[in-house]
């Protein structure tokens, strides 16, 4: 694995979430995550079957082949996208990493004197850690997705790609609203949602900047596609004067017609809906003959380590459409009580391969899996996550073997490759063990080993070496045979 420093597009993800408390310790949280993910996983299966019957795998393969083609020709499609988008008045930027993406966004805000922002859900802005930077620059920013809003009010972190507050119950949300919004306590989700609607409407009406993510980009038309159920993105990208979208470069699809295939899979895999309530396709800023809509649309395309995966096996990870199906299917994700334990923006099985691949480091994540392959079965894009987990483990085994083990292996192989040295080594080993046996100290000298090796040795005895080696035996037999 190459070190992050030797790559010009080395990513700078802000994974400070590792320091956060582990939600896994709380049994109530674990139960909530358990129930939700298991139900979602079952519903996804049913939705797929109900929609496509026996053809499910064909549809998944179709979607995958479109993505494979797009990724293999990414330079062409990116170029096409930029040309088409700019022809319609959208401004497109390339950001090599999160810091640059945020800087571009803040520049736009400064140039246009923007001070109040409403934001819809975006994993990419989690990746770039945008929120603190906006606040630091004096731009009052509100998350508008209900789950993200709750997370923001509670100064917490989202724990699931699709359901950010999977780790919170209605009572904690009720207490949070009472504390932060000074509303009357309620634990009725309906009432709590109404309170959030009213508070956020106030922010929408005053905002001059709307920030969104993007689920897809259409190369042919230069369009940005945002999928939500709440309609929060619709208000965030229509009411404010300026719209800025943060999107990963891998979100491209060639044409409008291909979008249909992905839409058919995305919501069914995420929440078992046939399609998200709102599929908002933005083709550009307000046209001269339109009376409302943003005056400017900016799309910041984020690399952040993605281009590093191109041309390698890992490029398959760029096919992910962020539906969260693998999280719902994963027994480890359930066991650790949701996404916080992964200590990274992208959690669950896909996070365990994506995070080390984009960011480098996170050596423990590829081992946070039982390799049961439930994620592979659940992935609408048929990304072979178990294969990538094993591949990342193998890379580590090659580059991170401890010194002692490395020395031992080097000597061992040195002896295996040279007959004389091998024979000498074997004789030496035999003499040593026989000497130990003859003094009847065999079990005892092993117990002189340090640390855990002693515990291991007290329960075991060394196998006794035979009187002669195979070669000696062969030699003797042949000599004997030769004399008769």
């Amino acid at each position, binding site marked *: 694995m190459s070190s992050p420093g030797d790559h*010009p*597009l080395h990513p700078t993800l802000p994974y400070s979430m590792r320091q956060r408390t582990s939600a896994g310790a709380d049994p109530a949280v674990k139960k909530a995550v358990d129930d939700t993910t298991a139900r979602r996983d079952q519903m996804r299966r049913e939705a797929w079957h109900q929609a*496509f019957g026996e053809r499910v795998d064909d*549809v998944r393969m*179709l979607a995958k*082949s*479109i993505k494979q*083609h797009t990724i*293999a020709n*990414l*330079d062409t499609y*990116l*170029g096409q996208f930029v040309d088409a988008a700019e022809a*319609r008045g959208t401004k497109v*930027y390339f950001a*090599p990493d999160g810091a640059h993406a945020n800087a571009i966004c803040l520049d736009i805000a400064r140039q246009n004197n923007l001070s109040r922002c409403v934001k819809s859900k975006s994993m990419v802005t989690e990746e770039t850690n945008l929120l603190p930077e906006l606040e630091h620059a004096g731009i009052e920013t509100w998350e*508008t*997705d*209900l789950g993200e809003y*709750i997370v923001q009010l509670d100064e917490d972190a989202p724990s699931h790609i699709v*359901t950010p*507050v999977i780790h919170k119950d*209605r009572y904690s949300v009720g207490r949070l609203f009472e504390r932060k919004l000074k509303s009357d306590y309620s634990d009725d*989700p309906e009432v*709590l*949602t109404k309170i*959030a609607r009213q508070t956020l409407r106030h922010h929408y009406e005053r905002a001059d900047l709307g920030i969104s993510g993007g689920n897809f980009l259409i190369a042919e038309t230069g369009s940005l596609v945002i999928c939500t*159920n*709440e*309609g929060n993105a*619709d*208000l965030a*990208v*229509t009411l404010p004067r300026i719209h800025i979208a943060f999107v990963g*470069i891998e979100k491209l699809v*060639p044409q*409008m*017609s291909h*979008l*249909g295939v992905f839409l058919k899979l995305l919501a069914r895999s995420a*929440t078992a809906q*046939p*399609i*998200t*309530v*709102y*599929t*908002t*396709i*933005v*083709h550009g*800023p*307000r*046209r001269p003959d*339109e*009376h*409302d809509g943003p005056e400017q649309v900016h799309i910041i395309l984020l690399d952040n380590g993605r*281009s590093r995966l*191109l*041309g390698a096996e890992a490029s398959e990870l760029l096919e992910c459409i962020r539906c969260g199906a693998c999280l719902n299917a994963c027994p480890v994700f359930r066991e650790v009580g949701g996404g916080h334990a992964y200590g990274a923006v992208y959690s669950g099985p896909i996070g365990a391969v994506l995070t080390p691949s984009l960011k480098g480091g996170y050596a423990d994540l590829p081992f946070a899996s039982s390799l049961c392959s439930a994620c592979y079965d659940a992935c609408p894009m048929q990304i072979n996550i178990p294969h990538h987990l094993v591949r990342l483990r193998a890379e580590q085994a090659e580059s991170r073997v401890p010194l002692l083990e490395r020395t031992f292996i080097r000597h061992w192989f040195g002896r295996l490759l040279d007959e004389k040295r091998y024979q000498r080594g074997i004789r030496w080993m035999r003499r040593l063990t026989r000497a130990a046996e003859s003094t009847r100290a065999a079990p005892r000298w092993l117990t002189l080993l340090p640390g855990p090796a002693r515990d291991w040795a007290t329960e075991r005895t060394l196998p006794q070496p035979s009187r002669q080696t195979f070669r000696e035996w062969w030699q003797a037999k042949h000599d004997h045979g030769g004399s008769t």
Partner: protein
Amino acid sequence: MTWPPRDLSRDDYLKWIGMGLTEHAAASHMLPSDLSTARRCEQSPDVDLVGLFCDNAAALSMKPTRCPSTDLSRTIVTTLQQHDVRSVLSTIDDAALREAVEGALCATRDTLTGWPASREAVLHADLVITDVAAAIAETGTIVYDAGPNRSRCGHAIAPVHLALVRPEQIQADLLDFFTSPACADSLQRSASTVLISGPSKTADIEGVLVEGVHGPHTVHVLIIDD
């Protein structure tokens, strides 16, 4: 060149991306031309698209109603009466439908604001009446786009949305819409196209479904079916 430059230019970046790609991969992954595997609904005379659309829209918790054009005014008025409505915004592209709506509502005490309207009128509308760019039978989806005669947020701003659909606007499959002239028109005419499949909803708190979180809690769809 110091990498990465502050303003990464298009050409530099695309060159960089190109360096990571192989001709072998580009050649071995062809773009599939036939998407019909993903099709779920056929455009054929045997399929009752209006009926299918109504069933699927109802399954998404929208409220579809079929009414003949002669009964349109009365149906709009009775729909409005179901809600506590004071200010109604209409953003309708189809001139005939616009006149019909205006005619229907001038007879009632509701204040009707046409398009273009002030920002205040948009923000405080209790109900928005729109026509649509298309509808999709497979999912029960309506397609709303902006344009000279329609507000960009007309579908999401008010607690109630009333959408008017003509039967000939209904496409069979989602795939049909994206290759249809209606979709191409929408791209030409408008800077945004929105597929709407139900009332605004969330299940973020304990998975309990709540409708009307940011956008409408009720979406009425009137299919003008003669």
